[in-house]
């Protein structure tokens, strides 16, 4: 899959790598079960630190989009559907918007709770 990062951007590189994978899943460019390049390979390819790539991968793992297995590398999980990836993207946008508005964490969570309860 295609990874693009912009070293001049204010977004951390690890987040940019995570965003690239999320985008690829959302667009259906990578299918569930597909392997991502090993962190070392990707780091050399993009000219970034291995730990930066791993931070991005770790973030995707927390979101349930990929699984990291020792010795087998990173692979897109079976339930990483394009819809799920798109939902994650929207959640990130919502959080970013809330921060721009100066909302606190509790205020945003209260908003989401309210929506869930409706």
């Amino acid at each position, binding site marked *: *899959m*295609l*990874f*693009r*990062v*912009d*070293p*001049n951007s204010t977004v951390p590189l690890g987040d940019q790598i995570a965003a690239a994978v999320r985008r690829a899943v959302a667009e259906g*460019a990578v299918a569930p079960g597909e*392997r*991502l*390049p*090993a962190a*070392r*390979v*990707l780091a050399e*390819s*993009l*000219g970034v630190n291995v730990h930066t790539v791993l931070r991005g991968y770790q973030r995707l793992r927390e979101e349930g989009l990929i699984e990291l297995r020792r010795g087998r590398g990173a692979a897109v999980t079976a339930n990483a559907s394009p819809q799920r990836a798109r939902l994650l993207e929207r959640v990130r946008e919502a959080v970013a918007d809330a921060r721009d508005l100066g909302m606190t964490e509790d205020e945003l969570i209260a908003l989401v709770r309210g929506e869930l309860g409706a």
Partner: protein
Amino acid sequence: MTRKNLGRATLAALPFVLALIVGLVVQLTVQDRLPDRLAVHFDAGGSADRYMGITAYLLYGLGTLLVLGSLWAVFAVNGKLYGRGRSWLIGGGFALAAFLGYLLITVLLVNVDAPEGGPTDGFPLWHVAVAVGAGAVAWPIGALLSRLAPAPEGPDDGDGGGAIRERIALADGEVAGWARGIGAWWAPLAVLALLAAAVAVGRDLSWFAGAPLAVLALVIGTFCRPHVTVDRRGLTVSGLLPKPRLRVPLERMAGADSRRVNALAEYGGWGYRVRPDRSGVITRSGEAIVVSLTSGREFAVTVDDSATGAALLNTLLDRQRAGR
């Protein structure tokens, strides 16, 4: 199967079928004069040292010729060979069938009226020379026949043309990389077979021959799940370890295309192939990134989503030419 394919398959299998028919006719003619146990294997002096029942021998010969015949037919149809490769396939098939057919039939003939312990004269070794000769005679016949049959057209080399080559829009300063695995299901099997051969050769002959084979198997083993990367350094195919790897730097590229390649017809097989005008890592027939080098040669890697990889290569090439 189309009529053309049928023709190709028939021509490729023909020598094996002929050898089979001649063998069966000979068998039927001399059947009554054959001993129960045929001498089928001879030492360097030509005396028999292994035996086989008539039925077993018949099945053995039949099986060998049938398997080889079908193999050649499959190659002729699926290989989509053209030009020299095609006449080599057909000629080679004729030669092999003549060589094997001659030996299989001669073994029958030397057993005619033979006593229990094997033929008295043994198996004169000049028969082997004659078998080789028969193969040498059959080769050009096959090659000639292959020219009479309708030849499939050579693969379209595609002039590419920079105009139709896709690009990926990259912002200034943006760094892009593309990576994809190209695992082939047969690679671990090939490594196992090679390791087994290494052990067999090491134990039966000498470890001086076995050890290099084992090392080769291990090197290929690191390439069981290779991956292809496209980035500012060029196109890289690497295995499990950082080295060995294959890399074509951007400086040596003229352009990249995504097109379908045929493993047998264009590269004569699978694996890391080097041909006079092209080389490549070929794990299957199908889509591939084909890089035109400044030297006029081509380097190909069979990989899924090759269009994205080729587009990124062209983008990176543009960038390099623009001096960014």
